[in-house]
């Protein structure tokens, strides 16, 4: 923290209303030069809305934004950029076939005569990259670089435009644990160089690690701003929810029953004919949660899509209760009792332009009681949505608003409610808690365990090792399209799992 406490950004009484909801209610907030300020709040508390106003994407209904002691009107993002504010969104906006440099200079090319002067840009990018440890390859094509690197390119984009205030909205939700560590180090470095940072995250660990102060928002209002050095994760969570939340998952040991799901020698190729699964075999018993740990891109998505009928299986078998399921249609698979919380909620889990009601019945709309003789039964559909909203605490102004207008975490809750409430025999949960607040995470974990205790088979795919270690009864490690090890949470830890995931250490079974 700087001694003189220069305030670079100040929000005074910012209010933003959406139909049926006050998303931000007279918010006051100060950002000091060189600090990292965390924004913490439940799903739908209004964090993204607030930052979208600071970045000029939304206009406040009331209140003022001050930059360096001057009131400003933040009409558009380009105005924000002009005033030295940059924002890294959860969904990157890069042009895949372009190189890193081209992406960075896009829209502000320096010209030498008619030709683009990329050379001097490359030089500047290299300088910035070295200075802030971004480790960017200016000539790499965006198509071919990892998610973590893409995010660093986004950071570079805003640094290149001269931003002094950097806003990050849930930057770590899409990253692997290793990438998160790198990002946090970069953020610290940026702050040390005098940049001021606001970061939205639901992960208390991250806040504890890098933030100087943490502002807690509840239902659109600022509740408190805490000095992180003197706060505990429990205290943060308590401020956020307004009551005690247990950050730990309590569960009884599993009592697995008979084999419910048997996968044998599964082979799957992607569209370009590349082998994505190369002989995967495992089973899941009724009443157990099997976790799949692995670095993103090692065949997890293909495994899930094969299990749910969304992708063709090349060879091998998938049996549920003894019946062959490979290459059945997604509808038949879901009707035989397979529930699926998909990894990508925007691509698969929701039709964003459908209402909350319509999304609640995405898999049941065609049958009684949701439709009769082909006619949708709007009353029953709405009641279903109301039931989900009620029991999963989905924060929405109503059942008839578009799913698009809900906060990220609340969108995820619709999917979770729909898939669990369909009462599947076999539940596949891919990154089920991505973007959820701590309260909601512990709720979802409890739900998964309750499903297990009700005798369901649960497959949990997650990049977050905490989650796997906390929730799963048995852990399979996937690497390069194969299951390379099996272990249990009690027999392993994050380090060991990390090594197994990198293909460097066999699990118990292979260790003998």
């Amino acid at each position, binding site marked *: 923290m700087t001694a003189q406490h220069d305030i670079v950004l100040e929000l005074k009484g910012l209010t933003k209303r959406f139909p049926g909801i006050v998303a931000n209610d007279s918010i006051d907030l100060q950002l000091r030069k060189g600090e990292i300020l965390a924004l913490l709040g439940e799903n739908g508390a209004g964090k993204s809305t607030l930052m979208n106003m600071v970045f000029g994407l939304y*206009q406040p209904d009331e209140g003022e934004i001050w930059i360096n002691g001057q009131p400003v009107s933040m009409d558009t993002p380009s105005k924000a950029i002009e005033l030295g504010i940059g924002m890294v969104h959860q969904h990157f906006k890069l042009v895949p076939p372009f190189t890193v440099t081209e992406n960075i200079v896009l829209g502000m090319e320096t010209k030498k005569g008619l030709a683009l002067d990329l050379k001097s840009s490359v030089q500047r990018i290299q300088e910035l990259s070295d200075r802030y440890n971004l480790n960017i390859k200016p000539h790499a094509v965006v198509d071919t670089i990892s998610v973590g690197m893409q995010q660093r390119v986004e950071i570079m984009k805003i640094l290149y435009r001269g931003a002094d205030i950097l806003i990050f909205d849930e930057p770590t939700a899409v990253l692997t644990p290793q990438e998160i560590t790198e990002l946090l180090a970069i953020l610290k470095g940026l702050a040390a160089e005098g940049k001021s940072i606001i970061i939205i995250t639901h992960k208390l660990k991250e806040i504890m690690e890098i933030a100087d102060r943490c502002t807690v928002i509840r239902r659109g209002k600022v509740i408190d701003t805490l000095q992180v050095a003197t706060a505990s994760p429990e205290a943060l969570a308590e401020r956020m929810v307004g009551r005690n939340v247990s950050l730990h998952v309590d569960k009884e040991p599993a009592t697995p029953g008979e084999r419910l799901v048997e996968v044998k020698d599964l082979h799957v190729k992607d569209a370009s004919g590349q082998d994505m699964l190369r002989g995967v075999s495992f089973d899941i018993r009724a009443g157990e949660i099997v976790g799949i740990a692995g670095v993103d891109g090692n065949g997890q998505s293909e495994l899930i899509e094969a299990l749910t009928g969304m992708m063709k299986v090349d060879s091998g078998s998938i049996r549920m209760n003894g019946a062959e399921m490979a290459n059945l249609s997604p509808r038949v698979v879901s009707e035989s009792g397979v529930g699926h919380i998909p990894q990508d909620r925007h691509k698969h889990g929701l039709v964003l332009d459908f209402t909350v009601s319509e999304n609640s019945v995405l898999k049941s709309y065609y049958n009684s009681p949701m439709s009769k003789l082909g006619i949708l039964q709007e009353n029953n559909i709405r009641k279903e949505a109301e039931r989900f909203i009620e029991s999963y605490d989905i924060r929405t102004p109503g059942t008839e608003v578009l799913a698009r207008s809900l906060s990220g975490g609340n969108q995820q809750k619709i999917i979770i409610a729909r898939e669990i409430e369909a009462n599947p025999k076999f539940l596949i949960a891919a990154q089920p808690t991505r973007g959820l607040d701590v309260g909601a995470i512990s709720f979802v974990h409890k739900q998964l365990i309750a499903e297990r205790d009700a005798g369901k088979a649960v497959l949990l795919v997650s990049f977050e090792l905490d989650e796997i270690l906390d929730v799963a009864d048995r852990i399979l490690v996937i690497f390069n399209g194969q299951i390379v090890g099996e272990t249990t949470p009690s027999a392993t830890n994050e380090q060991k799992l990390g090594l197994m995931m990198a293909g460097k250490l066999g699990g118990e079974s292979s260790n003998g």
Partner: protein
Amino acid sequence: MAKLKSFINVFKQESIWISIISIFLGLLIGAIVMLVGGYEPILAYQSMIEKIVGNPYDIGETIRSIMPLILTGLAVAIAFRGGMFNIGVEGQIVMGSIGALLVGHFLELPPILHTLFAIVVGAIFGGLWGMLVAWLKTSRGINEVVTCIMLNWSALYISHIVVRMFMMEEGTARSKLIQDSASIEMPFLIQWFDGARIHWGFIITMLLLVGYSFYMNKTKWGYELRAVGSSKHAAHYAGISVNKTIHRTFFISGMMGGLVGTFEILGVFKYLAIAPTTSGLGFDGIAVALLGMNTAIGILLAAALFGALMYGSQGMSFGADVPGEVIRMVVSIIIFFAAAPGMLRVLFQLRRSTRRKEVSARGNDSVSH
């Protein structure tokens, strides 16, 4: 009652007023164009209005020209909602007229049955022609725009062959007539409207307009169509057969086109002419659907505007001696303005209500959730 209410509500929306103002602006600029060209705009517009509603016959004919636009607007809108672009309505119209003509000319059936059968066959001909596009898309991966354009011409030439081979009226460039038992004329209305060629297709078209709204919003097939239209991936995840839905969508869309051709044969012309090009009604349908924002009420209003302008513009040359080219220019200016209310917003710096702006802002990924 509820329908009436929602109809009235349309006029309470900001967007409808923007459209209305845009239309007036279009009229104004059209007037300037005519002034510059040395014609009398007031007289021209007067004659246009007279042509549209001046006497029962013209009213009837105006209604008659609106009808096919409603149907082609529906055809395009159905495909739009399903996430596709049907610019093959032209061809579907031709196929519909072939179907109706074959049944109407060759079969001997009792009156009402004959009519019904001809309508069903015409619709199915158009539907199948549309489905061909869908099938080529799903099984061969060919973009529908390409196939649509090719199939438009194929349909036209098929119509030439069919007419020439089986039912050419000697000494003319058209087919023989359909039998009276297949006609869908409404004699009492024709009398009412002083001989304007109003037919039963009018009633069917209005029913289809209501049916469209119902199908899209209240049935499971409409749900599937919209799901596929807005996210194929999510639809696939939900267990909806994306290909089947695409086929169904194009079949229904094609049926609307087929009905246009059917009604023209059974209700207006009674024969099919060997035409050098297709009618253009299908392309107008694109503008109607866009202008009507794919809603039933919007399509009705847009088709009414379009149809009235096209029919009424004939009056401008009679009444004010405006040449055809200028008339077409004026009409396009008006439609251009009606279709581009966005321009007006810019012109008057109209701030959209924040809500509308921000809901759409969520559409692009730049807004965080």
